[in-house]
């Protein structure tokens, strides 16, 4: 966790919004957001009045000694609001919401100069959807396109996926 240099500026329990500090160019959903959220619920009793905003899932040990993939779930409409600054903000790790119809974890409404957001999942398997539902697998990549045709080139290298709030780009290197 990054208490000494926190990424979370504040939490609005009523609006279910987690506000990020300015000057941040990257953060991890679990080691930053989740860890700081737990710390703040402990130290700021007022935050306990609210039903939990996020929940971490996965991470259990498998039989082979490896851990299952971990991800953060935003509960009951919780969203992250980045600082209103024109930067590229990289969010590392898997993130889901509990609303299948709205899986975008950020709330950029009201921002004048919203950052360019890169969602990076270092894990092999990544699932998320925004305008388009996308699944990228290491050995067997499948892409489901709802609104527009997408061309994808695939090789055996590790995939990396980038999505902005304006244009969907899927790059496989």
């Amino acid at each position, binding site marked *: *966790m990054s208490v000494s240099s926190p990424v979370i500026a504040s939490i609005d329990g009523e609006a279910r919004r987690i506000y990020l500090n300015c000057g941040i160019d990257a953060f991890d959903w679990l080691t930053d957001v989740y860890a700081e959220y*737990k*710390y703040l619920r*402990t130290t700021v*009793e007022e935050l*306990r*009045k*609210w039903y939990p905003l996020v929940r971490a899932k996965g991470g259990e*040990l498998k039989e082979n000694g490896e851990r299952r993939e971990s991800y953060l779930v935003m509960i009951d409409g919780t969203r992250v609001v980045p600082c209103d600054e024109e930067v590229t903000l990289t969010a590392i790790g898997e993130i889901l919401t509990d609303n299948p119809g709205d899986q975008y974890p950020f709330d950029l409404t009201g921002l004048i100069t919203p950052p360019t957001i890169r969602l990076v999942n270092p894990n092999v398997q990544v699932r998320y959807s925004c305008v388009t539902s996308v699944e990228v697998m290491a050995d067997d990549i499948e892409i489901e396109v709802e609104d527009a045709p997408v061309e994808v080139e695939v090789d055996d290298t590790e995939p990396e996926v980038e999505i902005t709030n304006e244009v969907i780009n899927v790059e496989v290197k």
Partner: protein
Amino acid sequence: MAVLIDHTNYTQYLKQSTQGRAGSPDGNVYFDTATGTIELISVEELATFDHTSMGGGASDPNQLTNADGITMRALYLFESQEREADETLRTFKRGTGGKYKGAGAYSFINGTKLDSTVDDRKKIRSSGFVEYADVGDGETAVDRIYHGVTSVSNVDAGSAPYYVFAADDAEATLQAATTWAEFNRSGEVDEVVQVFGTTANGDTGAGDFDYTDDLLIVRLRTWGNLPDEATSDLSKIKKFDGFKGGYGVRDRVNPKNTFTLADVYGGAQVSPWTGMSLEKLATPQTETGFNEADGDFTWVLHNTEGGTALECAAYLDALAMQDADIDVGAGTYNGWKGREWYVCNDDEKVQTVELSGEGLFIEGLSSAEKLNVVLTDDAGDTKTYPFYSGVEINVGAAAKGDANAWYHVYYVDGAAGADFDTASAVVVNDSGGNPVKGVCSSADGNNIISFTYDYDGNTQAGLSAGVDKDVVVEVESYGANSIEPKITYFTITRSETISVLCDPPLDPNA
């Protein structure tokens, strides 16, 4: 088999002896015309005698026993029978008289006495009698009066009923009374007690006293049974004389006291009774926290080891049996002569008793046990505790072992929007008015966080008292190797124990 010798069988079982007990008796009744005494020679002194003259065998057992005894009516009729057959006996004055056989009202006339060397008076059953001096007509000047006391309900064979004569039943009077005594025989009561005596006519052993206008109190205090008491007032006897009276004292099992006396009182006491003592305070102490107004109490039962209401009641039972000072305070109070400290009321609760303007308070009761008592203060007002629901939250071993883990309890649905998951959420307070929150490391050895809730009094969050309340408990933490956040909803009901499980595992993502 020994029997009570009465008017129905005296002809079979009584035989005039030619010698007294000092010699070689050959029957069980000896008229000592030389001394004016009648001897009742029981089987304990004369095992058998020749019953052939009464239609029996030559060596039949003596049916007159110390335990079963003889009625005055039987003795009166036997004397009449013997005087009819024994002309020599006629040459002496009659020894017995009768006033009203149905009430067992008899007399010894002309200075006649029952032999006092073995106190044959103790063998008289179902009767009372007057002993007249041998002056004048032999039926006027009274030496002694014996009142027959008969229990009219069950008394256990092992019980030791006892009695007192007193001017009244005030606590101070009874504490000071010197006439307390056990009856001669255990079990059901059927014997005479002396209520009058004068030495004025030469009866040197009669004593000089007059209890005929006093109150007679007959008590039973037997371990494991309910205490009981009967009085001459209740028997409508306003003046004692030589008759018998029935007293409604009885033994009933106390189903609430199944303890062993040796555990409760005495040198082999065990916990929690080792932490109990009774004290009369020099100044009454004021107790609070009742449904009713505060109360002042002069007596207090200390209960330092958390005994239950029934364990406290058992201790009070034991104290009430002690013919000794039971007050650990500065004063002296005899338990045997003293009050019954409590009753079991209609709700089967232990209700302490006020007497002489002095009530009894019981200390050290748990929240749950407070619901099992009704305390009576010095003013005679009863005090009850509000119902406290007991809540036990099991936070699990992981949370207890997590130094940063915390718990917090909120109302789910308060009035006017004071709901959980809003800025107006209200923290639940325990019965002491303290918010239910804290660290999980304070859980007990079973990982339980417990608190009591004032079910009948708490109106937090705008909710009415005395109704079920939906609440939520959160258990969370932070840091490396911390627990997963967990949330559990439950309802506080009117229950002594509400068990809640909110036991998060270790967080694999922490």
